[in-house]
């Protein structure tokens, strides 16, 4: 129960950070995705039974603001969760380098995948621009170690965690 409460708290915190970062960096046209960094950190720490739903809900949170398509972010975040769980067998996500590289790749991939889904389902382009996406991915990757540290530190070795 306590672990679940901490998880909810982290989710709320993640949305607050995402909102703040998205508002600040949108001035420079950068599509920063801190929520995806949080989702990746959740998947690196949590058991799949908790990691996938949390990633899905994170995506659903972003879909909530969409007007033309609903579910694309949930889909993208779930794909990213699959990737993180796949990579966690080969990489040690306690080290900084895999965290940075994974978040950078995921943010870039999510941007591309989202745009493709948008194009497929609505026939409308939602491409944030190559440099905007690259810059956003770099910034998200820069903050990834802090995000992973926060998630690991808060959730510790609770019942919902893989190392629990």
């Amino acid at each position: 129960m306590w672990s679940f409460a901490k998880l909810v708290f982290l989710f709320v915190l993640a949305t607050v950070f995402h909102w703040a970062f998205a508002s600040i960096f949108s001035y420079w046209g950068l599509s920063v995705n801190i929520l995806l960094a949080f989702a990746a950190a959740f998947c690196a720490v949590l058991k799949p039974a908790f990691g996938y739903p949390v990633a899905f809900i994170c995506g659903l949170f972003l879909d909530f603001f969409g007007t033309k398509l609903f579910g694309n972010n949930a889909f993208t975040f779930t794909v990213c969760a699959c990737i993180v769980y796949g990579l966690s067998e080969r990489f040690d996500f306690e080290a900084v380098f895999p965290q940075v590289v994974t978040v950078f790749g995921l943010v870039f991939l999510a941007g591309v995948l989202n745009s493709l889904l948008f194009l497929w389902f609505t026939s409308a382009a939602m491409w944030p621009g190559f440099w905007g996406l690259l810059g956003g991915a770099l910034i998200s990757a820069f903050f990834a170690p802090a995000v992973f540290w926060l998630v690991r530190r808060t959730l510790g070795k609770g019942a919902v965690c893989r190392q629990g």
Partner: protein
Amino acid sequence: MLLHRKSPKKQVSPGMRRRFLWPLSFLLLSFLLMILPLEGVVASVKAVLAYVFIPQVRLAHGTAKYAENVHQTVRELLDAHRENRALKQEIEMTKLLASQAEAILDENGRLTEILHLNPAKRWTGVWAKVAYREPTQWNTVIIDKGSRDGIRERSAVISMEQGKEGLAGVVVEVTENTSKVLLVRDEDFSAAVYLERGQEEGLLVGNGPRPVRIKYIPLLTRVEKGDKVFTAATSSIFPAGILVGEVSGVRENEDFQTALTVHVEPLVHSASVKEVFVILDGGRK
């Protein structure tokens, strides 16, 4: 004889099945959400989610807004710090200028004494705040200093406007702690003044809402718009050399005219007077 060894059949463990079941179910669910029309089920899902997410969005938005304000406050603090440094430098410069002025004044005093000239006046007085303003009479104000502070009737009152000191009015009534000041625009106000250009003297009189006038300026005097007007040494109340205002026009082409009437725009505006300096002892030190 060849022995055919039967290869063991691959067994899928329940853990493995669950491992694929989770992502698959969420991927299918999100795919379903994407293909459904936005008006029907999706709108209902969004409405349900609104109950969960809207407080969260408010919190996020509020926090981001607060962070923006922090950024602005920090910027203001930095600006204030920069301004403070500049002001400190300015104060140092002013101190330097004041000490230079003091030296020049001493020198001036010595020379005045040697040449047997009439010594220049130096103003002394008290600063006062406008405490009350008659709503119906914008040409008089009550200030928060009175006889206890040395103010007497007919004391000259000046005020700062656009960084310059200008004539504001004259004290007409004094109580222990307050004084009433008649401002320049009042019809009962008058002062001896001179025009900067030709040094011609005249009598400045208030004219209510209309422009202040200088009467009795000789007819052939050359007066131009923008000429500065100062209090004259012949004034019994005001020390000489206080800036009154600028010429705003001259009344011309009047029959049987024996003198010019010059219109003046006072430097100190009645409505903007907030702090005044009351000159004590007729400005003599």
